[in-house]
């Protein structure tokens, strides 16, 4: 097991992502953040807090993608997690999806489907804390906390203080 990001590095990465979001969108007037539960939702809230400190408050919500997954039939049913779309909706907005780890890209594909059901944003961008490679779909992140080269049998664990008690990202060798 190796720790690749500690609490300070996670905080700095999220703060940098917040700055990049402002820069890329020329302000925050049209930006909506949507975190993918469980840990993406906490990261979304943290980035929104940084944006509020640096510039101005942005609407932040959560988007559960369970019902849109393409691997539902390969696993036992999963419990649903909360979806909260901010009041203004996403129609015509610049939506920034937030997730903890970008791996195969399938979660993001499901999230794009889910967003398509809700409305038609002007653009959809993707922010992830860790990009570990091994994409199975043509999907890329716009904002990356850290690129971590991994082998496919390793697993990447993101711990966040909101539910895990501490902030860290670890790599463990697979079975």
């Amino acid at each position, binding site marked *: 097991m190796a720790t690749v990001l500690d609490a300070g590095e996670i905080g700095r990465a999220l703060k940098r992502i917040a700055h990049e979001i402002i820069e890329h969108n020329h302000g925050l007037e049209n930006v909506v953040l949507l975190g993918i539960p469980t840990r993406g939702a906490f990261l979304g809230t943290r980035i929104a807090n940084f944006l509020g400190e640096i510039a101005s408050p942005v609407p932040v919500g959560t988007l*559960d993608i369970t*019902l*849109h997954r393409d*691997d*539902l*039939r*390969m*696993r*036992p*049913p*999963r*419990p*649903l*997690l*909360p*979806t*909260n*779309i901010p009041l203004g*909706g996403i129609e015509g907005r610049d939506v920034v999806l937030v997730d903890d780890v970008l791996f195969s890209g399938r979660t993001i594909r499901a999230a794009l*489907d*889910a967003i398509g*059901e*809700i*409305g038609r944003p002007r653009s959809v961008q993707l922010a992830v804390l860790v990009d570990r490679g091994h994409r199975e779909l043509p999907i890329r992140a716009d904002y990356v906390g850290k690129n971590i080269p991994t082998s496919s049998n390793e697993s990447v664990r993101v711990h966040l203080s909101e539910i895990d008690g501490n902030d860290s990202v670890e790599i463990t060798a697979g079975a």
Partner: protein
Amino acid sequence: MDKHLLSINDLSASEAIQILNTASELSKISDGPMKKLPTLRGRTVVNLFFEDSTRTRISFESAAKRLSADVINFSAKGSSVSKGESLKDTAQTLQAMGADAVVIRHGASGAAQRLADSGWISACVINAGDGTHEHPTQALLDAYTIRSKFPDLTENFNGLKVAIVGDILHSRVARSNVLLLTKLGAKVTLVAPPTLIPVGISNWPVEVSYDLDQAIKNVDVVMMLRVQSERMAASFFPSEREYSRGYGLDLARLNSLNSSTIVMHPGPMNRGLEISAESADSHKSVVLAQVANGVLIRMAVLYQLLGGAALTGEVSA
């Protein structure tokens, strides 16, 4: 949760709460931004109804459609059943057509169990009411409705007082509700004339009262049951008027309830018999909320049974 939902006894308290939680997440998305979800695309749900039904069949149909499943409606009237086809042959026909789930309502207690255990079909079986035995999705939607009116109840119903009133003897709704509500920790009192109380009631985890006015003092929920005249071969009470006087929820009884008490009825209502029009249409009545919540609960049940891999199927990483 098992492969089938035949009885509330198939569920543990935590599995029941899990279904309620799934339904409340579904209410946030499917009543809001996403009307239609792709989750059960390509799956077939058969509604196999040997008894008349409005609410339950429409509710299951709309739940399956909102999850993008294909729905086949089958009612005994106008099918080969009226030519004398047996349950076995009907079931095997459905199997040959590739049904993934069968929602069955039948006049015989145990019909759903028979369908599930017989080996005639491999589909999931959901009991939508079998004779006077059980109606588990009704109990789940009632529990969901209660929980939405009493926000303090989240993981259990400890301290909740419920009176279930009327034709207990013939009521599958009462049986499923007694099992589920007591499993979740509520205190249930059954109120009915002695002729409409089943034999062996002393083995149920409930109290029994013959006095409606006394029993509905200080309860949180009054659940009225339909007088099931179609199942009554003998006379169980002298006249409808006398039943209504003793066990009907009229305006005076409605006004005697606590301000937070809710009135439930599984429908269809016999207005003027077990429930007066004033009570049925009052602001304490949650009858329409029960119908609306029925769709969410049935979506949650279909998702739990069909949404994942078959329990025996291979599980990939």
